[in-house]
């Protein structure tokens, strides 16, 4: 059987960066190909070339036996390729059905609402998508919205689906459901290219993997018989040990003490964190994680209670006063809060410290000192880009995340609030970030580690708390973690 997709010798350079350096990739109908690789290894670039978002410098693409060149996304979609973007292209004020009809030729000129709704319901049932055609998109969870995109692709007769890190902003149950949907699609004979950094997902659903490193194919293997360690070694080129959490003392003085804190979507809640301690906050996303993090960081007003940091009352302090008091914050929303995509790496590294040395002296921005510091941070955190003057938006997703982490850790904070800090990081980088957090703890800082990934939370925390329905459902020391109890807490009052 001829391959559904053949990509041969694909080359794409951005200036001196060879993002794709002669890549071959095949995909068959009825197969899920896992595309793996370190941050910046060229996965997203390869998919953008395939989908016609930019032209390759060299190489050829054959899809369903036909040469695909000089194409744009529209032509790729007509040929039968669909790309599920991280940032969905849906209109929130419209219903599921209306979104699916948007720009769809087969929908015809007249709005055949009833027919379309029937087709949506039928396909949705067949694939296990559970979508209600009349639901308003704005009311749906991210996971549901993603399914609209998938449904859109299927209704438009896509034969190949590209999913670039589709699970990174999903809650674990939604991830499981997405993987089930992918299996359905495979059973219907669709080809799927699935990019992820999470090896359990790969082992769970992929038929084979292709691993990229520095723009080249570093290896490929069937998934049957592979294990996590093998895949990790293929990706990074060395063994990736699990982070060594030699349990923290947590005996330092109290650094953060929250009592009766309330605000939109949270509270009232009590929380204390000592120096030298990592408190992991688990729970299904959307249960007040964002609200709590932003209230602590000063981006949302507290309506009651108090927050003390190192004995200072910061309940109503400004964002910059909190930073001065030693609070660092890694937001989960990378694209519009944590980074300014249009500005350079250097500007993003100085984003929250622009009036302080080394970035400014005597009221003037420094040029050389800024460059030096930026270059040092890029080196120290392995941020891969040609120079600090490259706009942050041009970096690969994982490398953008490293900018945020470098900036917040470089300040030597007394309290770090880290919300999904490993989002989009490859296993090596995740390991590195974990190590840095442990080092921060060893230096006496307190860390509030908020993540919907239980595995990560358990690996790094000294105590584990669960956030459900905007309140702390319970806290237990890591030593005596009772998984059943954790599960109960999570589901208990969860929305």
């Amino acid at each position, binding site marked *: 059987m001829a391959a559904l997709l053949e990509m041969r010798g694909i080359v794409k350079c951005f200036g001196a960066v060879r993002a794709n350096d002669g890549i071959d990739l095949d995909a068959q109908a009825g197969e899920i190909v896992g595309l793996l690789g370190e941050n910046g290894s060229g996965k997203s670039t390869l998919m953008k070339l395939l989908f016609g978002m930019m032209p390759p410098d060299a190489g050829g693409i054959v899809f369903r036996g036909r040469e695909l060149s000089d194409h744009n996304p529209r032509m790729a979609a007509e040929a039968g390729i669909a790309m599920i973007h991280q940032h969905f292209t849906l209109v929130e004020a419209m219903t599921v059905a209306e979104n699916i009809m948007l720009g769809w030729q087969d929908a015809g000129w007249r709005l055949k609402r009833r027919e379309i709704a029937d087709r949506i319901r039928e396909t949705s049932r067949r694939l296990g998508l559970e979508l209600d055609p009349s639901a308003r998109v704005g009311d749906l969870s991210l996971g549901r919205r993603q399914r609209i995109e998938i449904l859109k692709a299927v209704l438009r007769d896509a034969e190949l689906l590209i999913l670039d890190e589709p699970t990174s902003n999903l809650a674990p149950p939604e991830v499981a459901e997405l993987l089930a949907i992918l299996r359905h699609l495979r059973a219907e004979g669709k080809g799927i290219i699935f990019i992820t950094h999470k090896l359990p997902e790969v082992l769970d659903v992929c038929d084979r993997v292709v691993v990229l490193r520095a723009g080249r194919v570093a290896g490929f293997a069937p998934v049957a018989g592979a294990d996590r360690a093998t895949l990790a070694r293929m990706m990074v080129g060395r063994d990736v040990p699990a982070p060594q959490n030699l349990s923290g003392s947590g005996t330092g003085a109290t650094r953060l003490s929250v009592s009766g804190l309330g605000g939109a979507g949270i509270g009232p809640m009590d929380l204390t964190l000592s120096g030298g301690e990592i408190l992991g906050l688990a729970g299904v996303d959307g249960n007040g994680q964002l609200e709590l993090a932003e209230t602590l960081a000063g981006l949302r007003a507290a309506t009651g209670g108090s927050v003390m940091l190192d004995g200072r009352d910061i309940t109503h302090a400004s964002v910059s006063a909190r930073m001065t008091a030693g609070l660092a914050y890694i937001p989960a929303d990378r694209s519009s809060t944590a980074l*300014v995509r249009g*500005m*350079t790496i250097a500007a993003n590294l100085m984003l929250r410290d622009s009036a302080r040395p080394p970035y400014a002296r005597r009221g003037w*921005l420094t*040029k050389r000192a800024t*460059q030096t510091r930026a270059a040092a941070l890029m080196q120290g955190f392995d941020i891969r880009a040609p120079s600090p003057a490259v706009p942050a938006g041009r970096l690969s997703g994982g490398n953008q995340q490293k900018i945020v982490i470098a900036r917040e850790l470089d300040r030597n904070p007394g309290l770090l609030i880290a919300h999904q800090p490993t989002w989009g990081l490859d296993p090596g980088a995740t390991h590195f970030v974990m190590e840095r957090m442990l080092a921060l703890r060893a230096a006496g800082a307190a860390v509030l580690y908020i993540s919907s990934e239980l595995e990560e939370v358990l690996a790094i925390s000294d105590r584990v708390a669960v956030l459900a329905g905007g309140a702390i459902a319970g806290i237990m020391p890591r030593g005596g973690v009772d998984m059943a109890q954790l599960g109960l807490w999570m589901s208990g009052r969860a929305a």
Partner: protein
Amino acid sequence: MSDALSATPATRIALRRQGLLPRILGAVLLSFIIAALLIALTGHNPLTAFAAMLGGVFGSPYQIGEALNRTSPYLLAGSGVALCFRAGVINIGADGQIAMGGIGAAGVVLLWPGQPGLLSAVAAIIGAALCGAAWAGIATAIHLGRRVHEVLVTLLLNFVALLLVQLALAGPLGQPGAGFLQSRPLPRADWLWRAPHVFFHGGIILGVIAALALSVLLWKTPFGFAIRVTGQSRRAAAYAGFSAAGITWGVMLTAGGLAGIAGGTEVLGLHHRLIEGFSTGFGFKAVTVALLGALEPAAVIPAALFVGLLESGALSMQRQIGVPSALVVVIEGITMLLILAATVRRA
């Protein structure tokens, strides 16, 4: 105005690669061709018309000076508008701020007569700046305090300022029995300095200084950094600890002050009195030159010069060979449209 910290070097490199300059020149050329066709349609020889235009700008030192005087308010107000736009504050109230500046300058000179020349001039300029800034300040207070969109506030205050000029001219500053609403003439001693032989007044010099200063502010200071971040992402700015209100106040007062000076120099340097409606349309020209200069204060200098010279030339074309005045406006519009189309950043 380079700075490796900003998006500009990369943008600049990208623009150079895309050939921005040739595109601007191409747009200018195209607009002149269209203009030639339109002129031919009205039954005039385009070549004669363009010759008249060129002569109108560079024909004599006096005409050069006149073109520069036209440029001056656009530059002063436009560089301030560019600063506001950089912060994402859409200030279209330069019209009103210029009008208030005019009142301020005329008010100081006429109501506080007999001061020595230099003191009087400096006081008048300061008065103009303060009035312009106050007007922008009122807009800012309403915008921030009552959460009314800044476009609406600044636009509506333009009409109020216009009425205030009329009120001032009907009252304390007016010249009774003049037939139109205008103030008493300003005493010669209080006129703004003019360059010998070329006759441009001091406004253009203030404008160049202001544009360069704003450029330094934007690229070399932490406040400028905060402005740029705020303009790109409000959420990121809040996360960085920048106060959106503080930045809005900063850019609005600065822009208002500069627009006020623009109004003051019109009164002190050009009309030598306050005239009803002297500021009308300047606010939109300020927006135009700010956009033409890609919101880069230093680049507003050539942008304002271009518009000033074009207008000056077009007017003399009208005077000399009678190309209808409406056509002049049309040509101006086409030129600006084409240049904006050629320079717009691709998303």
